[in-house]
C-alpha cells in the first residue's frame, strides 16, 4: 500500500490510500484512473516470469524463425533477417527502429527488471537501482514484442495464398516470450518495488 498520501497521475487529485485486499484496485474518484493495485506475491511472480522470458528471448534469437517454401525453393529466415534486409534495401531508419523496439528494448526491459528484482528478493539494493528501474518503467510502451507478433501473423496470412510458411522454433519461442513478458508486466507492482527500494536503502 502506498505510504501516506498519493496524487492521481491524470488529474492531480489527492487521495488517502486505503488498505486493499489481494486483487483489488483503487481508482481516482474524479477521473477514474487506476491509482494502485494490490497483487499477491507480486515480486515472486514477476521474477519467475521475467526469467522465463529471458530464456525464450535467447531462443527466439538463435533458432530459425520462419521458412518460406515456394515451388521447390526454400528460404529460411531468423528474427534478425528483417532488420538486415531493411538495411540492405537502404531503409536504415526503419531498420534501426525495428531492431530497437523488437530486440534491444525487450532485452533491456527483461534484464533491467531482473537486475532490480532479484537482489530485492534477498533484501539488497543493486547499484543504481532507481535509475535502472526508472528505465524499465519508461521502456514499457517501446518494447513491442506483442505488436511484432501481430505483424508476424499478418505477414503469414498475406503469404499463405501463394506459398507455404513453416513456423520455426524461434517463432514458438517468440510467442512464449510475449506471454511471459505480458505476465511479468501484469504481476509487477511498481508501488511495491519503489517502497522496497526505499526500505532496503535504509538498512
Amino acid at each position, binding site marked *: 500500500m*502506498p*505510504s501516506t*498520501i*498519493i*496524487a*492521481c*497521475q*491524470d*488529474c*492531480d*487529485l*489527492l487521495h488517502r490510500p486505503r488498505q486493499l485486499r489481494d486483487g483489488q484496485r483503487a481508482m481516482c474518484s*474524479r*477521473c*477514474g*484512473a487506476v491509482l*494502485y493495485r494490490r497483487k499477491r506475491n507480486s515480486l515472486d511472480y514477476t521474477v519467475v516470469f521475467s526469467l522465463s522470458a529471458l530464456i525464450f528471448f535467447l531462443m527466439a534469437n538463435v533458432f530459425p524463425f*520462419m521458412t*518460406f517454401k*515456394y*515451388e521447390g*525453393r526454400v*528460404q529460411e*529466415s531468423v528474427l534478425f*533477417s*528483417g*532488420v*538486415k*534486409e*531493411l538495411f540492405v*534495401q537502404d*531503409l536504415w*531508419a*526503419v531498420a534501426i*527502429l*525495428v531492431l530497437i523496439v*523488437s530486440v534491444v528494448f525487450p532485452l533491456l526491459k527483461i534484464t533491467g527488471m531482473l537486475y532490480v528484482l532479484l537482489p530485492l528478493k534477498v533484501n539488497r539494493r543493486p547499484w543504481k537501482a*532507481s535509475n535502472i*528501474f*526508472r528505465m524499465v*518503467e519508461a521502456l514499457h*510502451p*517501446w518494447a*513491442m514484442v506483442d*505488436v*511484432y507478433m*501481430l*505483424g*508476424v501473423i*499478418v*505477414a503469414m*496470412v*498475406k*503469404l499463405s*495464398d501463394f*506459398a507455404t510458411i513453416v513456423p520455426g522454433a524461434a517463432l514458438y519461442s517468440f510467442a512464449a516470450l510475449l506471454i511471459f513478458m505480458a505476465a511479468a508486466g501484469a504481476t509487477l507492482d*511498481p508501488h511495491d518495488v*519503489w517502497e522496497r*527500494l*526505499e526500505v532496503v536503502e535504509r538498512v
Partner: protein
Amino acid sequence: MKNMRAFQVSLVNCTTCFQVSRIEPMLKNRNAFCPRCGAELCRRKPNSLARTWALVIAASILYIPANVYPIMTVISFGKGEPDTILSGVQSLMASGMWPLAVLVFFASIAVPLIKLFGLTLLLISVQYQWQWRPRQRTILYRITEAVGRWSMIDIFMISILVALVRLEAIATIEPGVGATSFAAVVVLTMFAAMSFDPRLIWDALEKRHA
C-alpha cells in the same frame, strides 16, 4: 484534503515512483528531484502544450507521404506491384480475410487518425480552457496513449516479408519510402501523447472558477 489537488497545497507527484513530495515555492525556478527515486520533479510536464503541438503538426505533415507513397512493392516475375497503407487493407478485404482486414484497418488507418484528431482536440480544449466533460477528455487521452504502439503492425509486417520473400527472379518484396514516413508518424504521435499532460485538462477548471 477533500477534493484538493496536489499543486494547490505545494505538493508535487513524482511521475516515476508516485511519491508525493513537498515543493518549496521559493525553489520554483530551480530543479527539484524526487527524494525516493531521483527523477526530476515537475508540477506539470515541461512545455507540454508547445511540445505536443510541434509533434502533432510534424506527424500530420508526414501522414501525407506515409499514405501516398508505397510502403512496399511486391515484384513477381519482373512485374512490380506497389502497395500503400490503404491498398494493403483493400487487398486483405478483397481476399476475404475480414478479421485481419479489420485489424490492419484499425491499427494502420484508424489509430493514427484517432491520435492526430484526439490530441488536436485535447490541445485546443486545454488552450481555450474548456469546461466540457473533463472526465471524458481524460479517458480520450488514456485511449490515445494506449493504442499508439499498435500502429507498428504494418512496419513489422514489412520487415518480415522482405526477409522471407527473396527469390530473385520469381518473387521479391522491396520496402518503400512510405514505410519510413509511416514509422515516423507512429513514433512522433507516441512522443506527442507522452508529452501531453492530462492534468492540464483539470487545471483549466480551477482557472475559470478562480
